[in-house]
């Protein structure tokens, strides 16, 4: 009778074939349309394409990689620098928001969380275009900054690295807020009273209890901001200039404008390889729970 099935502490069944029946459709989709494309990307990165209209042919052309690095090393470096800066700023903005919602939100916690997410129901491009208006030379912000003397009369906000980093920070901010909130929300608030009873002041309690216990959320959030920020091309396209091009801009341009597939594929492949290594280390150390 079915009630005799053995289960572990969580009520999970020990089974050999049943789970695979449920997993196969999804796994097949992912293998076909995620893992196989990575293979075809790798193949493309070793192909040659003598002219714009030629059909790429596979030929162990490792020179694509050295060419990609020598030509676009600066963009690689810039992408990671901008993404790192955006991650740090996002962390500084997101932490107080998550903290206040988790510890002071009371019964409005869900509403406040909703408020964090609501702006992102408008399209990514439209939000970035709105920033272009805000930072633009005819916008209000620049007038204010020039009046109070933060910016010189000929200095601008738009088309600067700062604008690109600001856009990246903004666009990926919820990915930082939500994981930090989740780990803060799990903290047993009685720990704070315990700390106070043991003569710890608020700051010390914060430093010794809340910060360490929220680190999983901080790490997950950092990963979830850093990766899309490093691969983005829209913020640099709308808010930057020719000197702020990132790796995403190069890949986009080489793939879709120049049709130089092999170089673009080599660039993408290096990028995904770096990300995969980071994710593998991350999931080894911290598991995959926090990312989802």
């Amino acid at each position, binding site marked *: 009778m079915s009630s005799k099935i053995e289960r572990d502490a969580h009520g999970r069944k020990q089974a050999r074939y049943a789970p*695979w029946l449920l997993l196969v*459709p999804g796994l097949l989709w992912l293998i*076909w349309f*995620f893992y196989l*494309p990575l293979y075809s990307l790798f193949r493309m990165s070793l192909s040659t394409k003598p002219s714009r209209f030629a059909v790429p042919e596979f030929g162990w052309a490792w020179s694509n990689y050295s060419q990609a690095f020598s030509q676009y090393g600066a963009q690689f470096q810039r992408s990671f620098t901008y993404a790192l800066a955006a991650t740090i700023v996002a962390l500084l903005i997101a932490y107080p928001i998550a903290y206040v919602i988790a*510890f002071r939100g*009371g019964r409005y916690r869900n509403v406040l969380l909703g408020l964090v997410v609501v702006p992102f129901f408008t399209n990514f491009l*439209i939000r970035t275009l709105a920033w272009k208006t805000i930072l633009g030379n005819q916008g209000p912000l620049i007038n204010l900054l020039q009046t109070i003397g933060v910016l010189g009369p000929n200095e601008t906000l738009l088309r600067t690295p700062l604008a690109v980093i600001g856009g990246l920070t903004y666009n990926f901010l919820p990915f930082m807020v939500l994981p930090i909130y989740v780990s803060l929300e799990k903290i047993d608030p009685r720990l704070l009273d315990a700390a106070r009873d043991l003569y710890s002041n608020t700051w010390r309690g914060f430093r010794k209890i809340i910060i360490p216990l929220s680190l999983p959320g901080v790490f997950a959030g950092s990963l*979830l901001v850093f990766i899309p920020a490093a691969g983005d091309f829209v913020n640099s396209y709308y808010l930057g200039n020719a000197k702020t091009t990132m790796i995403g801009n190069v890949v986009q341009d080489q*793939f879709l404008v120049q049709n130089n597939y092999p170089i673009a594929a080599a660039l993408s492949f290096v990028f995904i390889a770096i990300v995969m290594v980071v994710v593998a280390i991350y999931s080894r150390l911290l598991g995959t729970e926090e990312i989802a």
Partner: protein
Amino acid sequence: MSAVVGGAKKPREQYGTVTSPAGRLGRFIINLFAAGGLLYLFLPIFVIVAFSFNQPVGRFNAVWNRFTFDNWLHPFADQALVDALLLSLKVALISTVVATVIGTFMAIGLVRYRFRGGGAVNFLLVLPLTAPEIVLGASLLTLFLAPTMLLFNISFSLGFATIVIAHIMFLVSYVALTVRARLRGFDWTLEDAAMDLGANPTRTFWRVTLPLITPGILAAALLSFALSIDDFIITYFVSGPSTTTFPVRIFGQSRTATPPQINVLSTMILLVSISILAIGTLVSARRTKRDTA
């Protein structure tokens, strides 16, 4: 008295509070910071909504000119933009349904059973979620461009089908992992109880398991829909020259013109999303109230 000893409950925000002036100041500063953060999140949204009432000078709706209701009276004036939005909705609907079904299967498979290879499947699922969109788009494009398709020897031409395929791909992982997280606390022995009472496995699934996990699935589906509608980078790579979704249309147009209808339609989408969110919050609040009463 220390709260660690007793089970006395007090509101969460009252723990660890200090009433010294310095403590109050600290609380005030951090509250101010958070409020500033929320304001920052809404700044572009205010601009988007405000500029939906702008009468633009020239082709770009980027500089404030004067207030008008014209754009709201003719929200569908830009036919190509409306077509693009309808296409986006269609893509989102199909890919959400498919991804939710396949993804939920995966989540159930992962949570309900203990089996060899579970860890590997987890890793296979997480990677697509963390991969940069540009690489997802670029790699799918190389697959679709290959003259004879790998694996099943099918060839693709870029368009509606390739967009849907791509969206399902990035949504499946997302659905599987979010539903899995929601299923963590699920008491699978309820299934045993149902079967002990004479239900067969199919009946048990439809009458016991599915109703219990539906809220989690619904939440994942809603967010999938939003992710699909919003996606630009991957879609831009796999859409081809003649199929244009809402974001792709905006990007293509933003070089030559930005009609204020973009702002009007975005504001409409925003209002619909807020309503759905509000209804969801109310329903779940009522449910918790009922359950705790």
